[in-house]
């Protein structure tokens, strides 16, 4: 696992990851934390290497993990990791910044940048490849300083690797295990400051846009007292007031599985209130398996799935998806039609409503679907306000072409 600390390293380590992966035939993780992804720093690019021409080379024991091949593969994996660990000690992307021997800091990723600023005089060991960890390098470094502190974000991974190998290092106080690190917090860690941290004024939370088609759907779910298994998108904001109409959100596609689980396990009077709500792009990403499960193991009280189809992937910046009929570059391609898909799988109650053109439609249809002990799929279709203009233009172009 490689841990970049800025944009340059994100770039360099990506190339290094490919090198390691090709040399040892092993997957490599590039650990991109939120802050690395949401920051931009200067970088110098390298000459692009041309990829080798693709050709299939048969390697059955290496790629087909039946038990007879998996057992030796496990041994090969351990041997590779031992080789990578040895390489990491001598040639890995490790960096030592010289400084005063009174304090040594072992760090990785974004924490390195905070450390350089918060403890400018400290000697620093920056670990680039954190798994397998360069424990002998850590041991020598710790022996070269009077006090050796590990500064890493979140759980104490490098600290535990060092201690397991018998390297005497200190870890950050428990209170800094939680939340993101920054320069101020690293200063406090170095100083051993355990006093409460200043509370910051709360910002304004985001909300569904005025005029957003999802608003009417969440008002209906709220007013009908539904138990809502939600999913990931703008519409997760349905959890906040004035709607307060979402009860679970786990991972993409979970709306359907969680909703079915609740239907199966709750007493019937509660089960009848359970609705799964998922956005269009989330549905095509990982909701279809749930829909198949809904048909295969229908709960005794039936189930209601609402697909919020706003014709785009609004939360991440208006990308196309398989339900729009256009590729990411907006060129026309095949389209997955949710109504057809649901009917093909054997769902008889398939409703399509426009929650803006007919604002009562969603309440009416939800009430009807909730009143039957059957499977229903409701498609609430209305383009996202922010995307509606460009969607119209693209549709016009497609129709003209």
């Amino acid at each position, binding site marked *: 696992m490689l841990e970049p600390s*800025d944009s340059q390293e994100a770039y360099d380590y990506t190339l290094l990851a490919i090198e390691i992966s090709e040399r040892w035939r092993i997957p490599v993780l590039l650990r991109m934390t939120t*802050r690395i992804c*949401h*920051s*931009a*720093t*200067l970088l110098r690019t390298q000459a692009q290497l041309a990829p080798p021409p693709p050709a299939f080379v048969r390697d059955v024991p290496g790629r087909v993990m039946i038990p007879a091949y998996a057992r030796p593969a496990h041994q090969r994996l351990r041997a590779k990791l031992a080789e990578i660990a040895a390489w990491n000690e001598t040639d890995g992307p490790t960096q030592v910044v010289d400084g005063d021997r009174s304090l040594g800091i072992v760090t990785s990723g*974004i924490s390195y*940048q*905070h450390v*350089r*600023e918060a403890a400018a005089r400290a000697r620093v060991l920056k670990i680039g490849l954190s798994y397998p960890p360069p424990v002998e390098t850590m041991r020598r470094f710790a022996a070269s300083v009077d006090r050796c502190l590990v500064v890493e974000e979140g759980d104490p991974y490098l600290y535990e690797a060092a201690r397991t190998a018998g390297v005497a290092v200190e870890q950050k106080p428990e209170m800094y295990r939680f939340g993101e690190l*920054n*320069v*101020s917090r690293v200063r406090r860690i170095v100083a051993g400051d355990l006093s409460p941290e*200043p509370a*910051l*004024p*709360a*910002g*304004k*939370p*985001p*909300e*569904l*846009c005025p005029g957003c088609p999802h608003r009417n759907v969440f008002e209906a779910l709220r007013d009908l007292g539904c138990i809502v298994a939600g999913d990931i998108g*703008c519409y997760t*904001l349905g959890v906040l007031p004035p709607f307060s109409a979402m009860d679970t959100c786990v991972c993409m596609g979970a709306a359907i599985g969680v909703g079915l689980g609740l239907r199966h396990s709750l007493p019937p009077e509660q089960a009848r209130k359970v609705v799964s709500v998922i956005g269009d792009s989330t549905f095509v990403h990982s909701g279809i398996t749930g829909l198949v499960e809904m048909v295969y193991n229908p709960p005794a009280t039936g189930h209601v799935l609402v697909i919020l189809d706003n014709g785009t992937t609004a*939360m991440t910046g208006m990308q196309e998806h398989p339900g729009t009929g256009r590729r990411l570059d907006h060129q026309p391609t095949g389209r997955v039609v949710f109504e057809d898909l649901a009917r093909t799988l054997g769902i008889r109650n398939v409703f399509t409503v426009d929650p803006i053109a007919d604002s009562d439609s969603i309440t009416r249809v939800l009430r009807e679907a909730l009143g039957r002990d059957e499977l229903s799929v409701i498609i609430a279709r209305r383009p996202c306000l*922010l995307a509606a203009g460009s969607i119209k233009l693209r549709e016009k172009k497609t129709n003209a072409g």
Partner: protein
Amino acid sequence: MPGNSAVVNVVVAGLGGQGVLKASGILADTAFRAGLDVKKSEIHGMSQRGGSVSSDVRFGERVFSPMVPLGEANFLVVLAASQVEVARPVLRPGGVLIHPGLLDETQLTNKRSLNVALLGVLARQLDLADNLWHAAIRAALPEKLHAANLQAFAIGRNP
């Protein structure tokens, strides 16, 4: 204006949809064009959904952390009056607060150029040449918005 070796810390804050990230991007690009090290960082969960958004820009000879430490911003540019108190803790004692009240917004051809107009106000206090600002504004926006935004920048820059 701090000396050359010091890092200049700027925080741009506002609400989703106001162009906070566009403004911090233009500032970072201007500093880059001036040959400085520059880092930019942002918090923008659902930035088009009207919530608080803020973005840090730090530039100087060498910048380490991409985040402005609390209480260490030299300049705080706030695009929405409601966000002044939310963002104020980042400002250092004696730091400069730049807010829409410093401008006559009615002079803007396009009121969505407020972000760029406030960059003009910021530019009065930074040692970054106007031609670099202009180039960064042009690079960040489609051509049809160049005139309105260069005008907005000028309104802030030369009141």
